[in-house]
């Protein structure tokens, strides 16, 4: 029988809401981020359910076109800025980065807490713009529509601007922590791959987010002063806005996926109990993806008036992303080969990721080629593609990471059988939701419309049914996790029997991460040398 530690970060040094709101402990800040992002994820998910219900029948059912515009814009903005960008780095990353490199905290704990408050302030301003009438520009705020519509663009743009600062602060903190606070004995190439993912993510956060900040400032000034940079009526160039926006937002999609890939590296090696295949290749491919992500933004603009020469260059560069992504996928497959695989719930999410992300990535290659993109641009094919990467990739990896580390974070076990069933259900619901959208997109159904012609009905109905399966199972999966915090059985230090440094401390961890300074005797993936016994009955 496993015991629950007496002192841990949840009850020490103090208990109570005030001690949480003023905490400098990276673990508590990570948990507070998690509560916030999970809340916004469920909120954004509920918006998606409303949209899918409207789309069940071809005609207008229970809302106006205008309302639908505001709905998909809010869904996109909430999911991108409020949920997916902070979810893994600021939530799980904050909690585990210092523990996994044997540090006591991140380099700048006060900045870390500040970033949470900044994030929350930005999120509230963005969401409260619903009260000002909502905004209907799409999450991309393209000019000239965003400078001419009378909806509440300024407040949501301000919210995104403020959240950008939070992202920058997290990025600075992580870069410095990884550079300066690794425990003696942990070198660059003995760091867990999750840390490499976070490092690559942080580079993108600090290099790209400032450009978003200045872009959004320019957009606000364009609306208020008519400065003539982006607004064609004032002599500006709307395509230039798209350059500015995507210089941030394309790298930002790798802010979403890179830490997810880091989690998958952890899960695959942990549950196939085999040393990761090609450690350095996986580590460098994270940096490779981060760098290439800055070279490809123009592939969002093939059908704008971007010059053909630029489009061609961007198309060629876009194909390069396939190389480091492929390196990762094949190294994971090679790791699985002849491993002794345990089909735990985190591992099921990892398998799910491999399939869904590969589909998302490959359809990305279709879209990267200019000719194909002209046909598919602004159809449901795009919608399906980025949901396969963002949701099939990042959200699935996030869920895998949550299930993997939840016992460590709260010291108690969720219902594993139920979690496994839900992982499968989420996979089925996901496929059912988004594969029909690929087909509709190929047949030319445009995105962002609340009505459609009858030929698209069948696939839309499949998609809506899938969405409800997905929504129900996601909700239940989170409920399963939360119930565990109160009802779960204590798990012991190392429930899964794996080698990462985070499993050497108690579950939940000591306020100072390790009550005894851990001795680093092996790397995180040395399954060929060391065996660890799971404290759970697997």
């Amino acid at each position, binding site marked *: 029988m496993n015991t629950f530690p007496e002192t841990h970060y949840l009850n020490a040094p103090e208990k109570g809401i005030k001690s949480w709101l003023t905490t400098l402990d990276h673990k508590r800040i990570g948990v507070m981020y998690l509560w916030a992002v999970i809340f916004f994820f469920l909120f954004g998910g509920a918006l998606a359910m409303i949209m899918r219900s409207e789309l069940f029948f071809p005609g207008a059912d229970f809302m106006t076109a205008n309302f639908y515009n505001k709905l998909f814009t809010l869904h996109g903005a909430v999911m991108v800025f409020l949920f997916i960008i902070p979810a893994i780095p600021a939530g799980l990353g904050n909690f585990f980065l210092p523990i996994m490199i044997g540090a006591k905290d991140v380099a700048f704990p006060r900045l870390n807490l500040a970033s949470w408050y900044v994030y929350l302030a930005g999120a509230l301003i963005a969401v409260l713009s619903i009260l000002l009438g909502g905004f209907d520009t799409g999450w991309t705020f393209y000019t000239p529509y965003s400078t001419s519509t009378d909806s509440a663009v300024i407040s949501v743009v301000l919210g995104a601007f403020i959240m950008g600062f939070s992202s920058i602060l997290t990025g600075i903190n992580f870069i410095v922590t990884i550079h300066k606070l690794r425990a003696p004995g942990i070198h660059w190439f003995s760091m867990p791959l999750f840390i490499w993912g976070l490092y690559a993510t942080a580079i993108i956060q600090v*290099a790209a987010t400032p450009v978003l900040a200045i872009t959004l400032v320019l957009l606000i000034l364009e609306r208020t002063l008519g400065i003539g940079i982006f607004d064609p*009526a004032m002599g500006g*160039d709307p395509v230039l806005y798209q*350059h500015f926006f995507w*210089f941030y937002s394309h790298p930002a999609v790798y802010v979403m996926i890179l830490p997810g890939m880091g989690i998958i590296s952890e899960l695959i090696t942990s549950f196939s109990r085999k040393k990761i295949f090609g450690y350095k290749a996986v580590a460098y491919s994270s940096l490779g993806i981060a760098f290439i992500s800055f070279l490809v933004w*123009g592939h969002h603009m093939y059908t704008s008036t971007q010059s053909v020469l630029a489009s061609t260059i961007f198309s060629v560069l876009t194909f390069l992303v396939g190389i480091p992504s492929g390196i990762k996928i094949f190294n994971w497959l090679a790791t699985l080969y002849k491993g002794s695989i345990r089909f735990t719930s985190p591992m099921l999410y990892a398998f799910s990721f491999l399939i869904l992300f590969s589909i998302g990535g490959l359809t990305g290659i279709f879209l990267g080629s200019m000719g194909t993109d002209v046909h598919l641009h602004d159809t449901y094919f795009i919608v399906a593609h980025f949901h396969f990467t963002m949701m099939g990739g990042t959200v699935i990896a996030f869920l895998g990471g949550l299930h993997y580390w939840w016992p460590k974070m709260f010291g108690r076990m969720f219902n594993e059988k139920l979690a496994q069933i839900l992982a499968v259900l989420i996979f089925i619901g996901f496929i059912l939701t988004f594969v029909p959208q690929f087909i509709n997109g190929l047949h030319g159904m445009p995105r962002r419309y609340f009505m459609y012609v009858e030929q698209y009905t069948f696939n839309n109905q499949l998609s809506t049914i899938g969405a409800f399966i997905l929504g129900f199972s996601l909700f239940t999966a989170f409920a399963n996790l939360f119930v565990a915090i109160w009802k779960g059985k204590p798990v012991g230090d190392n429930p899964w029997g794996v080698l990462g440094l985070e499993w050497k401390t108690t579950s939940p961890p000591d306020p100072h991460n390790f009550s005894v300074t851990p001795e680093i005797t092996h790397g995180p993936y040395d399954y060929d040398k060391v065996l660890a016994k799971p404290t759970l009955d697997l």
Partner: protein
Amino acid sequence: MNNTHTHHITPLWIYLVVASALMVLTIITVAVSNIDLGGFNVLVALGIASIKALLVAFFFMQLWWDKKIYLVIFSTAMLFLTIFLVLTMFDTQTRGYINPEMDGRIKPNAPMYDTMESTSTTH
């Protein structure tokens, strides 16, 4: 002082020489701007500004002596900025290559000029 390996102490004369060089370069750049070199004016101006910026970075900001990682961070910023500039200008400068009607921007004159009593804002 036992910590010279982390704290390089720059001799005073270097600061004074660098500051004087910055002043002289400022005077040169103003002087050169009054000579018409055609397209070279902007290159000379940017060249002198870059030399000044590097003097500030290497000596005032200590990059010359400090850990190389700071130089790497600084160079990374410049690299990303260059990528941003070059790839964007591949578009903005070549829009007319295949379709000449796409050259230039959408509206040459903002509407407020129509109401201004002016004789000189025509293109």
